[in-house]
């Protein structure tokens, strides 16, 4: 499977975590693809940390330079939406007003430690709002391809990359599997085309198998 396909599969599976009436924050990368897979019947408020609640779809024309999401891309606003400053945007985030935050990840440990802000010596983007999103969201879902391009697993015993926030990830979705993390790392789903053995072979962390383990729909 190529990287692009994997990203779409992950995004599609993540979309099923978004329920009617939720307040949702999406990180950059794979999470930004999630809205494409939301059922039309789902009504949610998308929040962005630059200061908007109730983001609507990308405008088809006449984009407004002063109306963008946290990545700087043009958006619209839905009825009931509001603008505010970025201190209040993060106030909402820290205070636990976000029902689900879906973030991209570089590594997740079996305790739910998230690493997604720096690859020392290579990429130094800075942490942005990730630490607070990880800290405050009622439910934090990490999306990532199961392994690095060179095959190294990203679900690890202990993060080798600098940690963004400790013990924050509640669910991991990759193209191979879905894990939950509460007291322990639990395999919840095996995605189509993969076997339990595939997952064992590509996961560094120890995991238990959920009694409800099911192959993906």
């Amino acid at each position, binding site marked *: 499977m190529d990287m692009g396909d994997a990203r779409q599969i992950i995004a599609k599976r993540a979309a099923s975590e978004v329920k009617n009436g939720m307040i949702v924050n*999406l990180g*950059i990368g794979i999470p*930004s*693809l999630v*809205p*494409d897979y*939301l059922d039309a019947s*789902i009504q*949610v408020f*998308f929040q*962005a*940390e*630059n*200061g*908007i609640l109730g*983001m*609507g*779809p*990308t405008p088809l024309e006449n*984009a*407004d*330079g*002063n*109306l*963008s*999401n*946290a*990545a*700087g*891309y*043009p*958006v*619209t*606003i839905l009825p009931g939406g509001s*603008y*505010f*400053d*970025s*201190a209040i*945007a*993060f*106030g909402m*985030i*820290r205070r636990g007003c976000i029902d689900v935050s879906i973030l991209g990840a570089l590594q997740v440990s079996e305790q739910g430690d998230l690493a997604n802000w*720096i690859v020392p010596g290579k*990429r*130094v*983007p*800075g*942490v*942005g*709002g*990730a*630490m*607070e999103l990880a*800290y405050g969201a009622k439910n934090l879902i990490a999306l990532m391809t199961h392994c690095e391009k060179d095959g190294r697993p990203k679900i690890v015993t202990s993060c080798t990359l*600098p*940690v963004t*926030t*400790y013990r924050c990830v509640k669910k991991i979705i990759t193209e191979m599997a879905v894990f939950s993390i509460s007291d322990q790392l639990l395999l919840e789903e095996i995605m189509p085309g993969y076997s339990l053995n595939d997952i064992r072979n590509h996961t560094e962390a120890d995991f238990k198998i959920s009694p409800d383990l099911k192959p993906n729909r």
Partner: protein
Amino acid sequence: MSLFNKVTDYPTIKSLFFDGMTLLFGGFGGVGTPPGLIDCLIESGVKVVKLIGNDAGFPWIGIGKFICLERAQSLIASHIGSNPVAGELMTQGKLNVEFSPQGILVERIRSGGVGLNGFLTEIGRGTKLEYDKPIIKIGDKEYMYESPLTGDVSLVFAKKADTFGNLVFDKTARNTNPYVAMASKITIVEAEEIVPMGELNPEEIIVPGIYVKHIVPSKGYNWKWIWEMPDKSSRSAQPAK
């Protein structure tokens, strides 16, 4: 009330900048960083000891243009990922970068702006961003102390200003601007529109004029390019129709 008229021109602003100043700038990924004032800062030839703002902008947008000139000694920001030049300067030791989580950073600016002496938080505890920040024990919990940030000069972008400096912002171009406007000795505003006192609805004013020292008219903004660049893959972060 001409007594309260703070409208001036760019040459006057240029003369306010000085070597060694600490500069705060509004904006988030370039959006809402006053382009005319940044150009004015560039033309002034001044060196800045400390830049404080949400991010490093893009190499040709926002504070990024100034950072690329290597006239800033240090930067406090939440990320520099959109400006590779800032990353290079950091790696070469030419720009000292302190990373602060995004919401914590704007709260530090607010803390300075409202005359408080910093705050406590758990955000970033145990991570690299702890730096050597004081750890304060309250009851049986430990928190990081985040210091307030203030500056000599603040650069702010507004949709509308009246001549007293009452400010109204536009949509997501508001972002950090209201707090940046409160946190420096001299706050300079670039406004898309300047109106007489009394024309703004007192209820819609986000920053009262009390915080503003000087106002200049904007020559227009330039951040729409961000998503018009051919080398950036388009990104829909919202529900598709």
